[in-house]
């Protein structure tokens, strides 16, 4: 995972609520077996609208996305996070996020910042697109030249992101505990019994 410590860049204000992962990366672009190369499909349908905020010249090169409430709701496709990352964004700031999307960000190294004041920040960067925004994970603050907001983040997630820890490597250190659990609680799916199908029509 890419570590996240502190990032400064310009932000693009996407003033829409409930931006779902189908908007972030429409399904027709998910038919791929790779993890990279999704960036150019970010908001592919919305980009067909003239004047879509991401394509305005004053927001070119932005590396922080500021959005409305419930960002990333919907499908679990991690492609959404890969797409945002591949398009050059390091952080997404919104009042709240879809739970699975936020988790996926944590595993990928894109920082999802839950900021109740996202709307104020949105106004700032919409008014002055050149505003430099700093997201500091260590201190848990978002800063602009004339404003500063604290944000909350799970302490464990913060540690993982700051260090770029490999989640799997971390869990494999608990090998003993996992093996103990397996010995204590044997789990098996068993062999299926294939019966003739009948009545209710289900495979039994």
């Amino acid at each position, binding site marked *: 995972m890419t570590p996240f410590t502190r990032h400064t860049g310009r932000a693009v204000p996407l003033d*829409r609520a409930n931006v779902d992962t189908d908007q972030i990366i429409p399904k027709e672009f998910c038919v791929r077996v790779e993890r990279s190369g999704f960036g150019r499909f970010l908001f592919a349908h919305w980009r067909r609208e003239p004047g879509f905020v991401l394509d305005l010249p004053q927001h070119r090169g932005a590396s922080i996305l500021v959005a409305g409430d*419930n960002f990333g709701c919907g499908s679990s496709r991690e492609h959404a996070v890969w797409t945002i990352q591949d398009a050059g964004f390091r952080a997404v700031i919104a009042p709240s996020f879809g739970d699975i999307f936020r988790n996926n960000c944590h595993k990928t190294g894109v920082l999802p910042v839950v900021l109740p004041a996202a709307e104020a920040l949105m106004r700032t960067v919409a008014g002055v697109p050149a505003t430099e925004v700093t997201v500091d994970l260590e201190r848990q603050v978002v800063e602009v030249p004339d404003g500063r907001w604290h944000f909350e983040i799970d*302490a464990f997630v913060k540690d993982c992101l700051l260090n770029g820890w490999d989640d799997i490597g971390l869990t494999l250190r*608990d090998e003993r*505990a996992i093996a103990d659990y397996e010995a204590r609680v044997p789990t098996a799916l068993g062999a299926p019994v294939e019966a003739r199908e009948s009545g209710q029509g289900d495979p039994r």
Partner: protein
Amino acid sequence: MSDNIGRTVFDKVWDAHVVRSTPGEPDLLYVDLHLLHEATSPQAFESLRLAGRRLRRPDLTVATADHTTPTVGGVERADPLSRRMLELLQTNCGDASVRVFPLGHRHQGIVHVIGPELGLTQPGRLIVCGDSHTSTHGALGAMAFGIGTSEVEHVMATQCIRQNRPRRMAVTVEGDLPPGVTAKDVALGLIRQVGVKGGQGHAVEYRGSTIRALSMEGRLTLCNMTIEWGARMGMVAPDDTTFAFLAGRPFAPRGDAWEAAVARWRALASDEGAVYDAEVALDAARLEPFVTWGTTPGQVLPVSGMVPEPAAAEDERALRYMGLHPGERIQDVHVDRVFIGSCTNARLEDLRAAAAVARGRRVHPGVTALVVPGSASVKRAAEREGLDRVLVEAGFEWRNAGCSMCLGMNADSLGAGERCASTSNRNFEGRQGAGGRTHLVSPAMAAGAAVAGHFVDVREWAR
């Protein structure tokens, strides 16, 4: 853990799966069943391989082809990219010794339909899958939630998942559902009440007399839609309906093991006096068949209603996208396409409901209507009952199992501006095809719209 006060079904299943619990860290939980499909697993298999790691428990992993499968013909009908995904699923599963149900297999189908119907989904199990609608399996009293591809890889390597314990929410639905009102309408009515982010951070338990009276199919529909209001999991405590549904299924326990399992499962019900962090109540008698008018499942109205005045910028945008006007009666809105399918509403009961409306009627000449059974097994069962004949005679297309037009990763999708009555779960912009307009409804309502060419209150047809 809370030993002295009553525990909920969620607490009981969670506590039973804790591998390691450390203050200040998420719990490490053991996964009983990991379900895979072709759309979110290839990158996980690849990363695992690159890291030199192996699947810890291929025997607890089951895969099926569903997201990109063609619904006419076999894999040769898939476009080259989809075909690569489908073939890679088989290769990856073969290499890793994972049981897989590819296209053409008698058990193939939508992952959330085949889990329960094969008896893989059982009360008390912790089930994950790289798909947000994994919440479906909670209908049997399992703890089931969707995960991303990085977590899929994590489960492959460790058979564990790291999770912060969500807060508990009870959704209590009391009373008899009025005739013509289904589990889908309970879900849509609930989202209308709590909003599309009402469940964020919560594990939901559905309870009350309405839930007890629901069939297993209905419970699956309701739990399926849990993610649509932001909660990752929805559970129904197992009861006699659950046990009757599971008995005799291929992976269900048999003989003495069955008796022991039922005794264990009964004890999973929430204790008297169990405490929830949030509670929501819904009155079944006040529910109607619902139709969504906008681009989130929360933008929904009763079939007797009119398209509302916009209350926010999102509403204005949704109205524009959907080509609707405030004050328009939803029953005056015409449809071009009808989709009966998806992990929400493509089980046998759903197809029966659609066929009951279609019987002796004809699909409107201006409408193309698709029926896509949730699994190969549902398809065979429906055919044994003659539902396919009823639907085909009425002018519906009868297809092979898969996710199909719920998300249109295969060839089944809407064209720009096309309006669809759909039994699926998401009416997001472009979900069923770029520029497509989706209205979520129950199977009977979808069949009614197919026949009339516009939305109708199917309750009036039953009288």
